[in-house]
Structure formats: structure tokens, C-alpha cells
């Protein structure tokens, strides 16, 4: 029987009169095929004398010609030195100790150079303090090869030379007529710089030095100075800390210049059943909050109240503080554990208010905290916002005859940049000391082009009594001259800065050669701090207490400005590595945005949703502060305190920034008076913004990916309680998956030679991202750009996964998953898993670095049709790029999703106009690692080139390899010591000991891949 049943795709189809449906039914394609566009020009087609046959002939001939031409190999030239420097052996790396001091990041580092060009930054492990490089410092080597750097000094925007430059500026300087000469500079903390300033003052009568930090610490500096008499910041060593309480301070991140994570991580690894307890009160979810044992999302106002409450409980004073019950209870507990830990406890303050810092100092003193070091404080932040404000006034009043701007970009980073620019124009001689035509340099009539720090000399007293030296690692690439040389010349000295520096450092009684080799020297010579006159505000503790206790929540949203691990204050915004480094918390690249809580998002109508390919879209919001309005995309951030928002500084630069790198929105206009907390109004602005996130699944759904336990369970010492071995059923007997009885595979014999293993301690990993950048630099990992990242085509060999808990804790997630009963109902898995996908309002957070796990039973190897992926005796899973034909079977079969496919040629391709597309940028490429081509798979090699080099060095010397010699780029970069790497066939080695620990587990152990990378269970001290 014939049926007249009509199948329909939408209800509109049932309506016969619907025009659209009719059209669609008649046309095969929904939209017209644009064939006419390339074939439609009939005239041109007909007038062409090329017939189809001719065309084929041309194709034939050109193919033949091309293949013939290809048979002739290119002639490659090799040009040796005429006089080879003694210490250079072509093909061997040299290392130099130097120091980065760019006004935001200060660290002692080692620079690896090959054939005279710096290619990688390493930590200077000899340095006692600040010898560890963060992600930005690791990436700073790429900024040396920045195509947008200025190549000569500039006079009124035109390239010039130094003779002309000196003459013109010298003429103008001699006709100042008593007007003031102002030096507006970054924090140098440099003994020699101070001497140069005094020489300048001797030469020109009316000189003022104003120190300006784009992201300043005025409140902390003022409080420290009020208490201890010098404008500096306390140092902290958390190694022995038992209780760490942080109120709004992201000390694992960039708080007060950062660099505290090394000691912190040490205190976090349980030893003899003990580890530190970390309690965090904060508004934005920061790195510190993510690592905390207990985290309370509170608004900045509440943070003030909490400090007052803690002060009353520990020091006394009995302030009347109104806090919500939950927070009040937590403060009580916190006070108890602070008192219990006594001198091993410390309170940190990130509230940008002098009173808050004063109270914190008082609390730490009352605790007699040994964690705080006020005797030898940190000198790397000295900026004074008030002097800068005064300077703007003076410039407007015409009091300033000349201004030298060094290392800072106030036209970009000053909150009222228009006012600054206008005032600047009233100064007749404006000299910018910059290495690129930044926003301020554009407004100056002279740009004294400065070299990169890797081409410069210098000294920096990072910590009082510890001076770190900067030495050039390459000849200046361009016609640049460093600030110090220029100032010395202009103050009438004929000495080069190198000699000047030598004299300065020798004056402290240290050996110049030794100091230069070490990268630092110690000195007891008291260096004059900046002689700047600072207006001191004195507040009594009781006044401070009542101010903090009575702080009331303002109407509107409380904005907390923060800096990202990637861009920091924005000095290195033209650095594609940093732009593509995912934010450790949001995992978003190439962007800044407003972070907002779920509750507020619902109130405002802000939506975040994933589109078909998983990429994240978000609506825009308008943020307004005193008439300053900015439209930014909003990202819903679990853990963000309700009523608060966060925006990252450092984005939205346009001057001297390549178009691709002009990302995000400049948030400095909100940084009023240099205070990071402001009250703003937020409105929904609609629209859709496309984010580029590298992680789209935010929760673990109760799965066994990151293993967690609490200190108490861990103390029981019973591994089954916190780190059980997965089991499978063999003949109805539960058998551990590592048992050979349930193994499908023949095992290799790896007992002879080296067998490399890597361990990642999830307790020590802070998620800082230094390893990611170090991996880029070592392994020539390409940058793919925002659109490609959005398509999940990022090339990072090493990623740091971040997971939120869906319930209050990961344990609760697991309990919930285990409690599922059936598909439907209250405990049904269908709805339950849906719920588990949504992060909690204040989730637990965990980080997990994941690279190729180098499985002994690697699933990728068995599926490769051309055997491009094979296994080495030393445990590494090899990837032969030249053998790969790009089937991508291996990536599909990899349970860890660590393989990356080269969808395009990323080097020498105008579509990917990053450092690998220009000769200057390519200088950073590591010559020992292949630059991959299009169509091949790539992945972590466990830094094969480094292990091979270590072995070769031993062979050359004819000796055994000692433990600690083997390293990878990531293990070298990990300042927190989370990554251990070595040879487990060496039974004395650290890695062998680590492998025997109770906390050791393998990722997805139940799959039976037997990885050579292991993890250590995360223990929380709740």
C-alpha cells in the first residue's frame, strides 16, 4: 500500500505559502554558489587567447621546469669568523649571568647564547634571592628580537645619529634658563644609577628625579616607611611558614613584584606529616586563591573589615566589625591558627590602603613572625604616585623646561593619560629613553633609543645588600645607547658606563670578575635611596583600625585591577609568546576581560556560552568610573566575590605594537590615583565577543584525573585511603592494573642505560606558567594566533590544566558521582552529570601540568601507519617529523590529548606574522631542535636534545652522570620544584626516591599505558 506520509524538517515546511521554503526546495544550495564570481566575466574569458590545451601545456612545462630546477641543490655558504673569540665554539652554548630589571620584573638569570646570540633564559640557581625567572622573564629573550624596536635615535620622528642627537639635546639643555630638568623614570634600585643622577644634578642645577611604577605599591611603601623608615617592601620567605593568611594579596602571582612562590611551594609539600596552611580572602580568583587550602570570596571592603577584625583578635583594640556570619566564623578560626603557629605565621595584605598595611605590619609584629624580613627589604618598587601627579601640575604650570622619560610609558599607563600628554606638550625638551616608539615616545621630540636589557650593562639592588649585575650577552643589534651612557655623556663625563659600573661595584669591595660571573655581589655599603622628597602621611594604628573597621560597602561594583601572568603591566605586550600564554585561571589567551560572578552575570544579563565547535562567546559590558567608560567582554568567573569585578591591566596598547598583538582593552584609565580598587558601575552592553580559551571543560566530573586528599587522611599513611591503585577484574578477581597478568603487552627491558622519568608534584605546582614559556623557547613551539587557538589548534607542548570543583570540593564531586543511582530522579546520572559540569560559586581549584606522558605502552605508537612514532630504550616516545605523513591517528588514540598537529606552515608564512616570520625573530630559534613543517604531528620529546647533550658531555669527559645533571626545559624553569626529572635506573637519584613515595600515581592509570611521567597526589591542609 502506497503511503502518502510526508516527512518534514520544520513546521514552516507544512505551510505551502511560505516563500522561503519554496525557494529552498527549488534551489539545491541554500545560498548561491559564487561560481559567477570567478567564471562570470564572459568578456575576459572570451578575449583570452589561451585555450584549454594551451593551459595544459603551460601546466606541463612549468611542472617540468620546477622539478628540473628542484634537482639542483642550493649553494649554502659558511662564513667563519676572521678572528674567533676564544670562548666561542660554534655549536656549543655559552651561559652568562645577568639581571632583568625592566621596572616590573626583577630577577637574576642565566642567558644561554649560541654563536653569540641569546636564545633562552634560565634561572640563576646560584643567586640566593630572586634567582628564578617567571613566565615573562623567560619570554623576555623574544623581546630582544622584536621587529618593532627602534633602530636609531629619533629626532622629531625622523631617524638620526648620535652626534646630531647629542648636539641638539646638548644645545637645548644649556638653554634651560633655570627651568627644571625632570627625570621621570621606572624604579631602577640601582647604586650606579643613583650616582649618575647625582652627577646630573651637579651639572644642571635644577634637577628632579620622579620615580613612577605603572603598577605601584604606594600604600605598602608608605606603611613600611612609616614603621621602618625606608621606602621599601618587606621580604617574605615562606619556606618554614605554618600558617599563611592572605587578605587580597596574590603573593603566588605578582603581588609586590612576585618571586615568593619558591619558598611557598616548599612549605606546601608535606614533610613528616606537616605542611603549611594557607587561608585566602580575596575578590578575584587569583593564583594564590587557587592554591589556598581555604578560600573566601569577599569584597575589597570586607577585606578591610577582616583586617580590622584580625587586628582586634591578635593585637587587641576591640574594634566593632560587622561581618557576615560565615566570614566572621572563618576569621575566628584564622585567628586561632595564626596564634597557634605563632612566629611561623604571617599575614599578607593586598588592600591598596596604607591603614590596612599598617595594621598588617602590627599583626605580624605581634605574632613575632619570622617569615617577614624587614631588615633586608625589597627595593624593586619605589614609585610615588603623588610626585607624578605633582609633576603633571608643574608641567602644566610651565615650570619644567626639560623632561627625560626612562623605562616608563605614562601616556599609556597613567590613569588620566590625556592630561599627561597635554601637560607633556608644554615642556619644550622632551626626551624619551625607550626601545620602541611607544605612546610616550610618540609625544616626545627626541627618542634616545635604548638597547634591550640583554644588550646592556647595569646593576640593581633587588634586595637591600644584594646587588645584581646586568651584563650584555650580545652586541647591540641596532644603533642604540643605553640610558646610563647617555646621561653620563650629558653630565659631562667621558667615562663609559661599563667602567663607571665597574668602579661602583669595586667600591663595595667585591671582585668584579667574580661578581660578573655569579651575577651578583653582596654589599654592606649603604646606598642612598632615591633622594626624592616624599610627602609622608602618618596614621596612628587606632585611627587605621577604626578606618578599616568602619569601611562600608559602596553602592556599585567594586573593581579590583590585577595583572596577568602573561602580560604583567604591559611592558612586553608585543611578545607573541606571552599573548598566547593562557591565563592560569581562565585559560584564556590574547585577551583581557571583566571577570564577574555567576550571580552578578545573571543580574546584569551577561551570558557566556559555547558555540558549536566548543569555543567560548561572551557578551560585552560597559564599565564606568567618573565618566571614564570602557566596553569590555565579560567572562563569568567561578570564585569571583559577588558584587565585585576584576580587569587585567597591561592590555589595549596600540603604539609600537604589531596589529595582531593589539589585544584587549586598556584598563589603566580605571587605575585612579594608582589605587587598584575602585567603585564602578557596570552595565550590559550586548554583542558577542569571541574568546580564545585553551580549556573548555572546566570540571573533572568526579573523575580520577587529579587525585586529592586532605592532610589528615594523608597522615594515616595508608595509601589505599588516598591513592588507591585502580583494579580490573581478572577471572572475577580484582587485580591491580599494573600487574603483568592483565597486561596485553610485552615489556621492554630497560634495566641497562638510562630510563628517564618525570614527576610532577601537584602540591608544589602553583600554575605559574614559567614552564610553558620555557618549553616554547627550548623547542621552537610556534605561535598560532587568536583565531587558531579558538579552533583548539594551539601548539603548546606543555599545558597546565586547571580544574574547578562543581561541589564545594573535589571530594564532594566524587562522592556525588559515586552516589548516582539510575538515569533519572534526584540521584540520576543524566541530570547529575549535567550539574557536575557547572563549577561551584567558590570552587576548589587544582592545576595539573600535562605534557606527553611518554607511555611505555603508548597507544599512539601502535596506530601510526608509517612508524613515525616509536619508542626509545630510554623511555622517551620519539616523534620523527620527517617520517610523519599527517594521518593524525596518533592524536586520536592518545588518551592524554598532548599531540599537536601543524595545520599550517607556521614559519615564514605571512598568515602567521609572528616571530618566526621575520629574520630578526627567527634568531631566537634553538638550532638543536627542528622547526616543524606543515602536515606533521608534534609533541613533547622530554627535551631529548638536552638529555642527549648531558650524555655526550659525560662521554666526552669519560665519566658517569651524577644525579641532577639531567634536566628538561620545564624542570629547569620550575622554581617551585614541582617538576623532578631524572634517571630511575640510578637508584640513588631523587626521581627514584620520588617514585617510591605514597603520593605517586600515573594519570589515567587504569588505561594501562604505563607512562614515564608521574604525579604526586595533592594534599590540602583544610
Amino acid at each position, binding site marked *: 500500500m502506497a503511503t502518502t506520509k510526508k516527512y518534514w524538517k520544520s513546521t514552516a515546511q507544512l505551510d505551502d505559502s511560505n516563500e522561503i521554503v519554496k525557494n529552498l526546495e527549488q534551489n539545491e544550495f541554500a545560498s548561491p554558489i559564487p561560481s559567477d564570481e570567478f567564471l562570470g566575466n564572459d568578456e575576459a574569458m572570451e578575449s583570452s587567447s589561451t585555450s584549454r590545451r594551451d593551459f595544459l601545456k603551460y601546466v606541463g612545462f612549468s611542472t617540468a621546469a620546477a622539478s628540473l630546477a628542484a*634537482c639542483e*641543490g642550493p*649553494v*649554502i*655558504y*659558511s*662564513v*667563519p*669568523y*676572521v*678572528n*674567533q673569540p676564544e670562548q666561542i*665554539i*660554534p*655549536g*656549543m652554548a655559552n651561559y652568562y649571568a645577568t639581571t632583568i630589571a625592566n621596572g616590573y620584573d626583577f630577577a637574576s638569570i642565566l642567558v644561554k647564547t649560541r654563536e653569540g646570540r641569546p636564545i633562552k633564559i634560565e634561572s640563576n640557581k646560584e643567586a640566593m634571592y630572586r634567582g628564578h625567572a617567571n613566565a615573562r622573564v623567560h619570554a623576555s629573550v623574544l623581546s630582544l628580537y622584536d621587529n618593532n624596536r627602534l633602530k636609531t635615535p629619533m629626532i622629531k620622528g625622523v631617524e638620526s645619529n648620535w652626534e646630531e642627537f647629542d648636539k641638539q639635546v646638548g644645545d637645548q639643555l644649556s638653554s634651560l634658563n633655570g627651568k627644571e630638568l625632570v627625570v621621570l623614570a621606572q624604579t631602577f634600585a640601582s647604586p650606579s644609577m643613583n650616582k649618575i643622577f647625582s652627577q646630573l644634578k651637579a651639572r644642571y642645577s635644577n634637577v628632579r628625579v620622579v620615580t613612577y611604577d605603572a603598577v605601584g605599591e604606594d600604600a605598602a611603601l608608605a606603611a613600611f616607611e612609616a614603621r621602618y623608615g625606608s621606602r621599601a617592601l618587606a621580604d617574605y620567605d615562606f619556606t618554614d611558614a605554618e600558617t599563611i593568611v592572605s587578605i587580597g594579596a596574590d603573593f603566588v602571582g605578582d603581588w609586590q613584584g612576585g618571586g615568593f612562590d619558591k619558598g611557598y611551594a616548599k612549605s606546601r609539600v608535606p614533610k613528616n606529616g606537616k605542611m603549611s596552611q594557607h587561608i585566602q580572602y580575596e575578590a578575584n580568583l587569583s593564583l594564590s586563591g587557587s592554591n589556598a587550602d581555604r578560600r573566601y570570596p569577599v569584597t575589597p571592603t570586607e577585606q578591610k573589615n577582616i583586617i580590622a577584625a584580625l587586628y582586634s583578635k591578635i593585637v587587641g583594640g576591640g574594634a566593632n566589625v560587622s561581618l557576615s556570619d560565615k566570614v566572621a566564623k572563618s576569621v575566628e578560626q584564622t585567628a586561632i591558627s595564626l596564634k597557634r603557629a605563632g612566629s611561623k605565621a604571617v599575614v599578607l595584605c593586598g588592600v591598596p590602603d596604607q591603614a590596612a598595611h599598617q595594621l598588617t605590619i602590627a599583626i605580624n609584629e605581634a605574632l613575632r613572625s619570622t617569615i617577614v624580613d624587614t631588615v633586608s627589604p625589597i627595593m624593586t618598587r619605589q614609585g610615588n604616585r603623588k610626585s607624578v601627579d605633582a609633576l603633571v601640575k608643574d608641567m602644566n604650570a610651565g615650570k619644567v623646561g626639560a623632561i627625560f622619560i626612562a623605562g616608563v610609558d605614562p601616556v599609556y599607563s597613567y590613569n588620566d593619560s590625556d592630561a599627561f600628554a597635554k601637560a607633556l606638550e608644554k615642556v619644550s625638551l622632551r626626551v624619551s629613553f625607550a626601545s620602541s616608539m611607544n605612546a610616550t615616545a610618540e609625544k616626545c621630540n627626541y627618542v634616545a633609543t635604548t638597547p634591550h636589557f640583554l644588550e646592556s650593562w647595569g646593576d640593581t639592588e633587588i634586595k637591600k645588600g644584594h646587588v645584581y649585575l646586568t651584563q650584555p650577552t650580545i652586541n647591540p643589534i641596532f644603533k642604540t645607547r643605553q640610558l646610563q651612557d647617555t646621561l653620563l655623556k650629558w653630565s659631562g663625563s667621558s667615562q663609559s658606563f661599563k667602567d663607571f659600573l665597574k668602579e661602583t661595584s669595586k667600591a663595595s669591595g667585591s671582585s668584579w670578575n667574580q661578581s660578573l660571573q655569579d651575577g651578583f655581589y653582596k654589599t654592606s655599603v649603604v646606598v642612598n635611596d632615591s633622594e626624592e622628597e616624599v610627602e609622608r602621611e602618618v596614621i596612628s594604628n587606632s585611627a587605621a583600625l577604626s578606618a578599616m573597621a568602619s569601611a562600608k560597602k559602596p553602592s556599585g561594583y567594586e573593581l579590583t585591577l590585577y595583572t596577568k601572568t602573561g602580560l604583567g603591566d604591559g611592558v612586553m605586550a608585543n611578545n607573541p609568546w606571552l599573548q598566547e600564554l593562557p591565563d592560569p585561571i581562565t585559560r584564556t589567551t590574547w585577551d583581557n576581560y571583566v571577570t564577574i560572578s555567576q550571580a552578578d552575570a545573571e543580574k546584569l544579563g551577561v551570558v557566556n556560552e559555547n558555540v558549536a565547535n566548543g569555543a567560548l562567546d561572551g557578551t560585552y559590558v560597559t564599565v564606568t568610573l567618573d565618566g571614564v567608560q570602557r566596553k569590555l567582554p565579560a567572562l563569568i568567573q567561578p570564585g569571583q566575590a559577588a558584587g565585585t569585578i576584576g580587569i587585567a591591566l597591561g592590555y589595549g596598547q596600540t603604539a609600537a605594537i604589531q596589529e595582531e598583538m593589539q589585544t584587549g582593552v586598556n584598563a589603566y584609565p580605571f587605575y585612579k590615583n594608582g589605587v587598584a580598587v575602585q567603585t564602578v558601575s557596570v552595565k550590559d552592553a550586548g554583542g558577542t565577543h569571541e574568546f580564545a580559551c585553551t580549556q573548555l571543560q572546566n570540571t573533572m566530573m568526579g573523575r580520577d584525573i587529579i587525585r586529592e586528599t586532605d592532610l589528615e587522611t594523608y597522615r594515616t599513611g595508608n595509601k589505599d585511603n588516598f591513592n588507591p591503585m585502580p583494579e580490573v577484574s581478572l577471572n572475577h578477581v580484582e587485580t591491580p592494573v599494573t600487574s603483568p597478568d592483565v597486561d596485553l603487552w610485552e615489556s621492554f*627491558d630497560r*634495566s*641497562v*642505560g638510562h630510563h628517564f622519568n618525570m614527576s610532577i608534584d601537584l602540591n608544589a605546582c602553583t600554575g605559574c606558567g614559567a614552564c610553558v614559556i620555557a618549553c616554547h623557547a627550548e623547542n621552537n613551539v610556534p605561535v598560532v594566533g587568536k583565531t587558531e587557538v579558538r579552533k583548539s589548534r594551539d601548539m603548546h607542548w606543555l599545558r597546565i590544566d586547571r580544574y574547578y570543583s562543581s561541589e564545594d570540593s573535589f571530594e564532594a564531586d566524587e562522592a556525588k558521582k559515586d552516589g548516582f543511582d539510575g538515569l533519572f530522579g534526584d540521584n540520576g546520572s543524566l541530570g547529575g552529570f549535567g550539574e557536575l559540569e557547572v563549577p561551584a560559586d567558590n570552587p576548589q581549584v587544582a592545576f595539573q601540568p600535562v605534557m606527553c606522558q611518554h607511555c611505555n605502552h603508548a597507544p599512539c605508537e601502535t596506530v601510526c601507519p608509517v612508524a*613515525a612514532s*616509536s619508542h*626509545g*630504550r*630510554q623511555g*622517551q616516545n*620519539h*616523534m*620523527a*617529523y*620527517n*617520517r610523519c605523513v599527517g594521518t593524525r591517528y596518533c592524536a586520536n588514540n592518545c588518551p592524554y590529548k598532548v599531540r599537536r598537529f601543524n595545520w599550517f606552515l607556521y614559519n615564514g608564512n605571512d598568515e602567521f606574522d609572528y616571530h618566526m616570520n621575520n629574520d630578526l625573530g627567527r634568531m631566537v630559534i634553538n638550532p*638543536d*631542535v*627542528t*622547526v616543524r613543517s606543515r602536515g606533521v604531528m608534534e609533541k613533547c*620529546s622530554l627535551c*631529548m*636534545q638536552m638529555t*642527549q647533550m648531558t*650524555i*655526550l658531555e*659525560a*662521554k*666526552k*669527559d*669519560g*665519566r*658517569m*652522570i651524577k644525579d641532577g645533571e639531567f634536566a628538561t626545559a620545564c624542570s629547569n624553569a620550575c622554581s617551585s620544584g614541582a617538576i623532578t626529572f631524572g634517571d630511575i635506573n640510578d637508584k640513588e637519584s631523587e626521581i627514584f626516591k620520588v617514585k617510591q613515595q605514597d603520593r605517586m600515581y600515573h594519570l589515567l592509570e587504569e588505561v594501562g599505558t604505563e607512562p614515564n611521567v608521574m604525579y604526586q597526589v595533592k594534599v590540602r591542609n583544610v
Partner: protein
Amino acid sequence: MLAFVFVTLGSISVYGQDATTSDGEPAAPVEATSGGDAALGEALFKANCASCHKLYKKAVGPALFQVSQRHDREWLYSWVKNSTALIATGDAEAVAIYNEYNQSNMNAFPQLSNTDIDNIIAYTDTEKPKPTGPVVDAASTGSATGGSSISNNIILGALAVVLLLLVVLLIVVNKTLKRFAQANGIQTEFEEEERTPIWKAFVQNQFLVLVTSVFLLLASAYFAYGALMSVGVDQGYAPVQPIHYSHRIHAGSNEIDCKYCHSSARESKHSGIPSLNVCMNCHKSIGEVADATYQEGIDEYGIDYNKEIQKLYAATGWDSDEQKFVGEESPVRWVRIHNLPDLAYFNHAQHVTAGKIACQTCHGPVEEMEVMYQYSPLTMGWCINCHRETNVDLQGNGYYEQIHKELSEARGGRQLTIADLGGLECGKCHY
């Protein structure tokens, strides 16, 4: 009697020796004024003076030819023995020389006796061999060889004539015989019976056609494969270099160790093309090659070696007259001969220092190469074969000791190859 015989024999032999020495002095020295021995002087000169002085040309120090006519002999004694002391006395002659040569001190030679110095002076009085000498030589050798070639030609020509005569003779004989035959009525031409031509027979034989075509196909496939596999293989590549550098002379005749110039081969992945300052270590004092070598270059290779050394001087900015660097350097753009693709990692130190492989194993008889060329194919198959076949020399290397012992036990005590040590794994060379 016996004693007498011995003495006479001895004296004869002594006399004989003397005779040979004096006879064997080819370029007879100009009558030495004080009778020094030029031959002994030459040896002393080469041992002590030659690094700074030349006879007919200024080097670090002045040219010494006929130095005895320029200076008083007693003065020369004291100058040679301790020139610094002489200058210190304020001797005008000495100070003038001292200033002329950039106030550089000449080494003192207190160990030389006056007789030694006399001998040296005798040698310095040796006339320069006439510049026509070698040319005459060349001409004579040229004429000699030319003579022999001419005589060869004559012989060959004569032979050709004889052959031609024989051919003519044969034709004449043949004709005569035919004429005789015709005259006698003997049939000389036989009619051959009709046969299928061989190509037709071949075409008709299908089996043969099949076999041949299969053979042809296989052969062409073989050659096509060979041709394709040689794409990108530059074995024998011998590009013209900006300076004609002869490995034959340096590594061969002069036996300079490879790693004297290519020193980074011991330490680094690159063997390194020596920087020009390494060349100048020797070539500061070697501005010209020996005459015989020079002639060999002209004759055999068409290269003027002296001009090539001048190129080096131009590149390093060396002024050989002033004996100093003038600072105008222009690096030499050598054409690289051995080019591995970027995807392969090769380390010289691994092979040279750790593996104790001789350079010649891969680079061939470099010491015989006038023009350097790529000796080995540098293909992966070639690498792998060597890794499979070469037994490792692990003696005396502390790194290998334990690994070697354990591996050797695991392999039943046999000698280990690189393959046993993991030298065939992809990741060892490709990363």
C-alpha cells in the same frame, strides 16, 4: 799492516765524505769572507731564525741576505747574542733597527758561538737561486716530455702508415685474385638462400618479446629508481671555493692534524670551518710556497698557490710588507660541502671524541684531495649501516664502563655495535 789499511780506508772514507759535502753544495755560496760553513749555517738558520727572518724578503725582521755587508761582523755577534743589551748601550745602528721594526725585540741567542754565527752569515750570503732557474727547469722538463711525446707520435704515425700500406696491399691482392678467378672462369659470388631477417623472427617469437620487454621494464625501473634515489644526494660534490685551499698540501704533505684546524670537532656538533686567525698562525710566516710546490700547482692544477695565500692576506687584512694587520677584514664565504638536512641531528664530538672514529671514515682520503669533495653519500641508509656494523671502542671511557658491562652480558658477551646502544632509534637523530 792491518792498521795501515784501516787508516787509509778511514781517511779515504773521510775524504769521500768531505768530497760529497763540498760537491753536494749545488748553489755554491759566494766566497764566504770568513770561511763559515753555509750548510751548517742553513740548519742553524732554519732552527733559530726562520720564524722571523727570510733571506730575500722582509718578514718580522729584516731580510738577511748579505747582512754581513751591511753591518760590522763584531757588531753582528753582539746583536745576535743579545740585541736588547746592545740597544741599551745606545748603539746608533742598533737603535735605528729597533725603531724601524716597531720596537720589537729580537730574541737573544747567547747559545750561539761566533762560529755558529759565522756559519749563519755564510748561509745568508747565498745568492738567490736565479729566478729563471725553475723556468729553465720547467722548459727542460717540458721539452723532455715534449720530446718523448713527439717520438711517440712519430712511432704511431709510422705504424699508421704501415697499416695503411697493408690495407692497400690487401685490396690490391684481392682485386688481382678476383681478376685471376674471372679469367679462369671460377664463380666467385654465391647466391644465398632466402632467410627471414632476424628482427622479423624476433618479432614473431612472442615469448622472446615478452621476456625482453619484461627485462627492459625491470632494467628501466632499476635505473629510474637509482636516479630518483640520487636526488638530493651530493656525493662527489666539489664546489669551487673562494680560496683554493689544498687539503693535499696541508693534511697530506705537511701532515697537519685535521683537528688542528677543525678543533671544534672534538667539542661540538660542528667540525667548524677554521676561523682565519687559525690560518694566520702559520701563514704569517709562510707567504709563499716552496718552488717545487708552486710548480706542481701550476702544472697539475693550474693554480698559483702564492696568489691564493695573498687572498688569505687580503681577507685578514694582513700587510706582509709591514708584517702587521691593518684591520680591513673581509670574511671568506666558503661554499659548504657537507649539507645535512635540518631534520637530522649530527654531532661531530659524539663520533670523534666519544666514538674515536677517524675523520677519514666519513670524509675519505682528505689528505689526498687537492679539491675537497663529499666522499660519502650522507644518506640515512649509509648512517644506519655504519651504526649496525661498527663495533664500539669503549675502552677507557668511564661513561661506558658499566653500561657496556651490563649490555655485553645481556648480549651474551659479544662485541657491541652502536645499534645495541640504541643507535638505531629515531629520536637519537631526529628531534
